[in-house]
């Protein structure tokens, strides 16, 4: 284990340095995300003010604001480019350069991406969590921050990231069959945006749909960590959702291994 870590740690290091190379790109990426966050805020503000009620499906407007900010934070934390990167490497044949090294294909991606993400996470998480707490405290008049909630949220985010990472790797392997993934990737992102509660909280959906979506792996990506942070899951419910997250993480981990074994035999390195 220690030896393995020593092999893959340099990938984190290299990942961080990659981000440092393209700082301006990174800043624009963050600004773009923040903008989307504001758009979302104004839409919900309009919905609440035209609805005439303070509470919608268990969410007050202040909770909705918290939800939006947390959604922004969580989706940045768990974001994974895997599908796109794997698809591109298969398409242009550079996957060959990873195959000639004595390392696990998936693990090099995982650690490299962690390196790419770590600067973002730290730059974002601290001010965002602070902002969330300021909003919550001023709107409700009392301090709601709990250390346990935060720790559970972090744990849940880590599992969510692993689910997302391995799901995306699996998805990327589709490129072995269809060669170019751009279209499929767009479709996937839209569907997941809806299924994971990024577009609207799952609590706003009809009961049957909500139950189904909560069980699907995509709720484990965004919705579960947010609900945990907001303190909406407690006791056995909390354990159930964390357990479900772990289940999905293992499921996609195993699936990615199996798909890789099957796919690598079909590999036809394109070009050169």
């Amino acid at each position, binding site marked *: 284990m220690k030896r393995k870590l020593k092999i893959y740690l340099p990938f984190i290091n290299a990942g961080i340095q990659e981000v440092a190379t393209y700082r301006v790109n990174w800043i624009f990426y963050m600004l773009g995300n923040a903008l989307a966050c504001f758009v979302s805020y104004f839409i919900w503000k309009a919905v609440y003010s035209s609805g005439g009620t303070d509470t919608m499906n268990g969410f007050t407007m202040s909770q909705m604001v918290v939800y939006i900010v947390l959604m922004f934070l969580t989706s940045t934390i768990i974001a994974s480019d895997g599908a796109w990167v794997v698809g591109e490497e298969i398409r242009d044949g550079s996957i060959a350069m990873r195959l000639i090294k004595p390392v696990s294909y998936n693990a090099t991606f995982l650690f490299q991406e962690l390196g790419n993400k770590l600067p973002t996470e730290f730059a974002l998480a601290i001010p965002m969590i602070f902002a969330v707490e300021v909003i919550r405290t001023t709107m409700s008049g009392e301090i709601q921050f709990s250390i346990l909630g935060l720790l559970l949220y972090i744990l849940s985010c880590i599992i969510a990231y692993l689910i997302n990472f391995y799901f995306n790797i699996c998805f990327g392997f589709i490129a072995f069959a269809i060669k170019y993934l751009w279209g499929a990737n767009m479709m996937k992102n839209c569907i997941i945006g809806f299924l994971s509660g990024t577009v609207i909280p799952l609590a706003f959906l009809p009961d049957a749909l909500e139950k189904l979506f909560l069980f699907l792996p995509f709720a484990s990506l965004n919705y579960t960590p947010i609900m945990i942070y907001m303190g909406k899951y407690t006791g056995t419910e909390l354990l159930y959702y964390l357990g479900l997250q772990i289940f999905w993480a293992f499921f996609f981990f195993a699936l990615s291994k199996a798909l890789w074994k099957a796919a690598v035999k079909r590999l036809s*390195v394109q070009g050169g």
Partner: protein
Amino acid sequence: MIYVDKLRKEFKKTIKDPGLKGSIKSIFKPKTIKVIAVKDISFEVAEGEILGFIGPNGAGKSTVIKMLTGILTPTSGSCTINGKNPTENRRNYVREIGVVFGQRTQLWWDLPLRETYSVLKEIYEVPDDSYKKRMAFLNEVLDLDSFISSPVRTLSLGQRMRADIAASLLHSPKVLFLDEPTIGLDVVVKDNIRRAIEYINNQEKTTVILTTHDLEDIELLANRIVMIDKGTNVFDGSISELKTKYGQFRELYFETDSPNPVNILNYENHFNFKPDELNIKAEGKTVKLSFNSSIVPVSDMLSYTLGKINVSDISVKDADIEVIIRRMYKHGENL
């Protein structure tokens, strides 16, 4: 060391009728055909040998290399390198090989070159002191110091290729695969890289498999040639064997003051050469011709030429391997 037995690779290729109509049709009803890229190739390479692997574009060279390095899985047949099967336990197998693809890079594009080596050091678990020694050695052979702190994307092609070769040698592999390592390089860098390959082969008995389109690489480096065309093996042997078997060709250069020397000499009719057996290039005063010396001995050719016209300078040399191979590429197996 390396045994390749009836290696075969088939691809499915989607074919599409021309134009928009064809594109739409192929979305709904794709037609696939089977392409045999490598057709039952067999050869062996001994330890410490440098094998030149040549063939025209699309002959299947790269596909063979990709199967030998464990990137592609053969459709049938087998290859054993160092007693290991590349596709069976890839991660274990690739520890013992080094690979360079001239058209791609294994270096970390956005990072200073040095970082790539420190990542590779961990991947191959090279201990600190041997890493230092190795880097000093590679630096001596490939002269990396001047650009080791620059990001890889800023390197020139020649620097990048040297860096790539160093990266493939960091873990002292037993077998080195070089797929077109001199592609697009200038003469000086080519020379530098050739010397490095030769030196490492000499020093460490590294087995080298080299594909290239630059026949000078082959002549200077390779002990043996395997030539493939359309996926099959057409020649396997040393360069001198290639020359004696196919290359009874000699090249004759001379300078003359006579106008129109080619017409005066009229070799074709005088010696009854078939079109394949003679090739003449005349440019102003100089004439360069290559001919098959098993049809007409060099001495006859010389005395005939000197008897017919006034020659100011003349020389004969062994046919360039290029001449032979150009003929082989044209004719394939039917030679």
